[in-house]
Structures are given as C-alpha cells and as structure tokens.
C-alpha cells in the first residue's frame, strides 16, 4: 500500500514551490548555462560530421567533397532551397507528434501512422466533395486529415490513460496497422482501376489541388507547418493549459494531488499532437501526390521523431531543425550521382547524428565551467 500521502508528497511539493519562486539572482545574466546550450549542440554537429566523414572516407569517398555537394544540394541554389523547404514542411508537422506528448512525459512514435491516416481521410473527404470550390475542398480535406490523425493518436492516449498500455509500443504497432489500412483502402474500396503499377485512390482534380506559390515549388504546407509550430509553442509555454501539460510531465503525482484533470489534458494533448501529422498527410496528398497511395509512407514520420529529439521538444526549434534535416534528405540523390554512395548514406548520417545527440544529453551539467555557481 501507498504510505501516507502527505508525507510522501511533502518533498516533491517543496521542490515544486521552490522551482516556482523567482530565482534570487534574477538580474545577473546567466551566460554560463546559455553558453552551454550553444556549445553542446555545436559540438554534437562537429562530432557527428567528423564521425560521418571518417565513415565516408573508409568507403573511399572524399569527405570534404561530400560535405560540399551536400551543402550545394540542400542550400546551394534557389532550386535546392525550394526542394529543402518542400521536405521540411511535413517534417516539422510530424515532429510535433513526438514533441508535444514528450512534454507530458509520453514517448509517442506514431507519426508515420498518423500521417498515413490523415492523408487517407483527407483524400476520402476531398473525393466526396470534389465538385465544391477549391477552397472548400482544401478546408474539408485539412479538417478531416487533422481529425483522422488526431483521433488516431488520441487512441494511443486513451490506451495509456485508461488501460496503462505503453504508449511507445502501441503507437509503433498502430503505424503498421495504419499502413495496412492504407493498402487495403487503395487496393479495394478507393481503388482507381487506371492505377495499375501502383495501386492508388482516384485522383483529386488538378484544379482542386493546393497550388504552389508563384513559379516556385513551395506550397501552403510550409505555412501550415510554421503556423502549427508557433501555435504549439504558444499553447505549451504561454497558456494555463500548457502549464498543466508541463506540470503533468514534470511530476504526475504532484499534478494529481493539485487536482489537475490528468486524463482530459492527456487526451487533448494527444489529439493536438496527432492532428499535426494528419495535416502533413493532407498536404502531401493535396499538394504533391494528388492521390492516396503508398508514397504517403515515405519515412517522414520516423525522421520527425529525430527532429523532435534534436529540437529538445521545443516546437519553435522544430521549424529550424526540420529545415536542416529537410536539406539533408534533399541531398540524398546527389551523393548517389556524384560520389557513387548509396542513397542510404543519408540514413547513416541521421543515425550518427541521433546517437551523438542522445549522448550529448548526458553532458549537460557535467562540465564545471558551465555551472553558474562557480562564478
């Protein structure tokens, strides 16, 4: 049995009140911890580039030339910048699916599934109302995509909250279920008989697609992504609801003791998290593929997990990190063409970066130089 509740929680409550009270030396600029927050990520990038350089050199390619062409292919020309931004859009939306629940202390990795379901729902709804005006079609598609993705991840939250099912494993399994549902749908109920090589749904009419801006390739997806990231950041950091989320994430027992509605907050947060990749799925269909098929399952979701951890769960940082990783994805092709390296080279680089970042988490607070109290 639990020991006396008041006794158990006393130190935790004390810790929370202390954290809430203003720090004693508020006016002094805490440059040491700021410097730490810059030096360690920069170190991560340098170390992972060195490791990757060694790996590439072992494969007989010139690391400097590889980095140069990666830079050129991702940010070198206006065309490649467009290509990068087009890939960054679904990435930032997918990243939110992991980043937002991480604030609750939940590791949700159902990004890929929520994207697929969102794209599928959006396509189904868009096909139903394809005779309406283009903007109506877009609004209906976006709403159903978000609803589909949101409910999909909310189910993960429900299972966690009311049945104690581990959210990481259930969301992982649901990715496979989502892909199976997609395959089933495009091979039977929604199948366009003309799509022989790659079973697909009927297409959204061309004039009802999300149009790119001017003569660029960039489309509304990027705008949606940036707006969603800003809203998520505002919600988590500037609202009462966000405070509840962060309290639950910091210490669920204190949150319960303080009378927070842990269940509803968890479910709403999961819904908002899942709606983001759902929207990404809608954008992928409405702006790029034009129909639902297995191209939806393009690993944006799994890369999004990496973005969320790289951004240290900060929704605004997700925008920045997505652009960098979007560039990395965009440079996959040139490594194959110019350096005869397989396209999986980029995946190896992602893996190295991810491992280095995780290791760097353990470095915070380990160096005496960065401690404020040494001053």
């Amino acid at each position, binding site marked *: 049995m639990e020991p006396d509740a008041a006794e158990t929680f006393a130190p935790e409550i004390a810790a929370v009140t202390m954290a809430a009270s203003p720090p004693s030396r508020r006016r002094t600029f805490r440059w040491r911890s700021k410097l730490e927050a810059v030096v360690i990520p920069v170190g991560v990038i340098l170390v992972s580039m060195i490791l990757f350089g060694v790996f590439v050199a072992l494969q007989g390619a010139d690391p400097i030339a590889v980095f140069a062409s990666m830079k050129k292919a991702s940010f070198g020309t206006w065309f490649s910048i467009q290509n990068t931004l087009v890939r960054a859009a679904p990435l930032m939306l997918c990243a939110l699916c992991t980043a937002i629940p991480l604030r609750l202390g939940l*590791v949700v990795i159902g990004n890929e599934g929520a994207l697929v379901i969102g794209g599928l729902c959006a396509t189904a709804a868009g096909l139903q109302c394809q005779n309406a005006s283009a903007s109506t079609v877009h609004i209906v598609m976006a709403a159903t995509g978000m609803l589909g993705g949101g409910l999909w991840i909310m189910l993960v939250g429900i*299972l966690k909250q009311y*049945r104690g099912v*581990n959210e990481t494993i259930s969301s992982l*399994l649901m990715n*496979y279920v989502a892909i199976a549902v997609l395959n089933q749908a495009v091979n039977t109920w929604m199948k366009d008989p003309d799509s022989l090589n790659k079973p697909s749904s009927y297409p959204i009419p061309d004039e009802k697609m999300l149009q790119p801006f001017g003569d660029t390739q960039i489309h509304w997806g990027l705008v949606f992504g940036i707006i969603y990231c800003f809203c998520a950041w505002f919600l988590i950091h500037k609202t009462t609801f966000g405070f509840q989320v962060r309290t639950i994430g910091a210490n669920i027992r204190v949150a319960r003791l303080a009378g927070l509605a842990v269940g509803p907050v968890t479910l709403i947060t999961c819904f908002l998290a899942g709606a983001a990749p759902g929207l990404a799925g809608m954008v992928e269909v409405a702006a790029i593929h034009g129909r639902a098929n297995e191209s939806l399952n393009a690993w944006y979701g799994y890369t999004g997990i990496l973005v969320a951890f790289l951004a240290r769960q900060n929704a605004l940082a997700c925008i920045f990190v997505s652009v960098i990783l979007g560039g990395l994805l965009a440079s996959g092709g040139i490594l194959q063409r110019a350096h005869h390296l397989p396209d999986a080279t980029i995946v190896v680089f992602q893996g190295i970066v991810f491992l280095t970042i*995780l*290791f760097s*988490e*353990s470095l915070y607070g380990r160096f005496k130089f960065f401690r404020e109290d040494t001053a």
Partner: protein
Amino acid sequence: MSASLGFWEIPIAVLAGAIRGGTPFLFVSTGECLTEKSGKINLGLEGVLLMGAMSAYAISYKTGSPWCGLLAAGGAGLILGFIHAWLSQQPKVNDIAAGIAMIIFGSGLAFFLGKPYIQPLAPQLPGLNLGGWSSIPAIQSALKICPLFFVGVAIAFAMNWFFRSTRWGLFVRAVGDKPDAARAMGISVWGVRTLSIMAGSCLAGFGGAYLSLFYPGSWTERVSGGQGMIAVALVIFGRWNPVQCLWASLLFGGAQALGPALQSIGVSSYYYLFNASPYILTLLVMIATCSDKKQLAGQPGALGTGL
C-alpha cells in the same frame, strides 16, 4: 495435388508459417526477454535484425559458407548491442530514444553496406526434411525446417532454466528488479546489463541471419518488415518468460501466414488487413491484459529506468 487439399491448405500453411515465420520472432523475442530481464529495453533490435541479415548474406556470399555468415550476424549483433548498452546507460539517456536511434543507425548501415549484395545469390542454410513420410508437397515443404528453429527452441528452454536455477540468472533478475539491492550485493549493474543487452542483441543477429539465409532467403531492404520492433511487444505478450515467448512467436508466425493462406484459396477481400493481424493481435492482447493500476506480473521492477 495441392488443389485437392481444399480447406486443409489453411491449417497447413499456418502451421508452416508458425515454424518458418516464427523462428525470427523466436530469436528476437528471447533476446529481448534477456535484455528486459536485466531492466533495459532495446527497441533497436530492428536495426540489429537488418544488420544481421545483411552481414550474414554478405559473408555467406564472400566465403561460400552460410555458417560463417551466421557467425558474422552474431558478431554484428554483439557490436550494435554494445553501442546500445553503452549509450542507454549514460545518465539522462532514455532507453526508447536510444532504441529509435539504433533502428535508424542500424538499418542505414545495413542498407548502405548491403547495397552490392542485393543482386547476387548467397549459399543458404540447409533445411531438415522432416516431411519425407508424406507424399503431399504442401506438407513436405511445411516440414522443411531450418536447424536454427530447434536451436531457438532450445535457447528458450535453456534461458528459462538459466533465470530460475543459476547464479548468473539470479544476478540478471536482481539487476532488473532492484538495481540498488544488486549493487549492495556487490554485483556490477553496468556489467550485467551490458552483457545481457549484448547477448540479446547477438540472438537478434542470428534471427537476421535466418531471414536472409533461410526464409525468405534473400537480402532486400524490406526483409525484416518490422519484426524487430514487435519483439518488445512479444515479450510483454510472453510475460517476460522465455518459454511463453516461444509460444507467442509461433502464434505470430502463424498469424503472419494467415493472409497469404486465405488469399491462396480465394478469400482475398481483406488481404492487406490480414497482413496486419500480428500487430492488431498484440494491441488487443495488451489492451486486454495491461492495467493502469499495477505492474504486469513478471515485469522486472526497474524496467526502463536508469542506473
């Protein structure tokens, strides 16, 4: 001949699938079971499975001996296991995040290094023909069993005995349940966990070798199909007991064969959803058995926590 079997094709196909398709599940789930008994989660077995499949195929092709390939797969598992063990035991590093990173790293490495081996044919592991008594080809092919299956079954029972009746098994369980108490007894928590993760990962490497060298018997980037990720769910399904992991693996192998079997007799309307039946089955079992009130029976007390 096979046409006359009619409905009986389904149970035979499911039985064959249970043995044939269940073997990789058996290796990854017993490996994950050992890892989790020591209190750590290794979600990265998917990466290990792919690396194992790739290195087994490549070495078998280079040396002409599938057994050398098997050893190489085990070695790849040990190395990746060590990286995971070292990383996941750093302070503030989450097991799950480390596992996802290992999936990306391991699969990237396997795709990268395995690119030249997609085309050539490598020597395969031999199968034991236990169906010679029957004249029906379906039964004969169902009972063509890889020796690794029996090794896996033996490992499952041996591991059960190891946990129950040996001094080292007690160490592993102690470290997984109460690391502080184990440390007070003078056991090296770091050492036991590292060895458990490496051994578990080595088993997953053998599972990968089975994929590329026996069934389906070729190296492609889709050869594992997420089987490494299900390992974690299988262990929960099997209640952290290696023998129950064996039954769970057979069940999953059979469930995997259900979709194609139904299609072969003409029931194909829900083919793609049937392919997802192992995942749906796991979810349903977890929903039915988990509880938000208490830990599951058999779950190591310190599972997923740091040092």
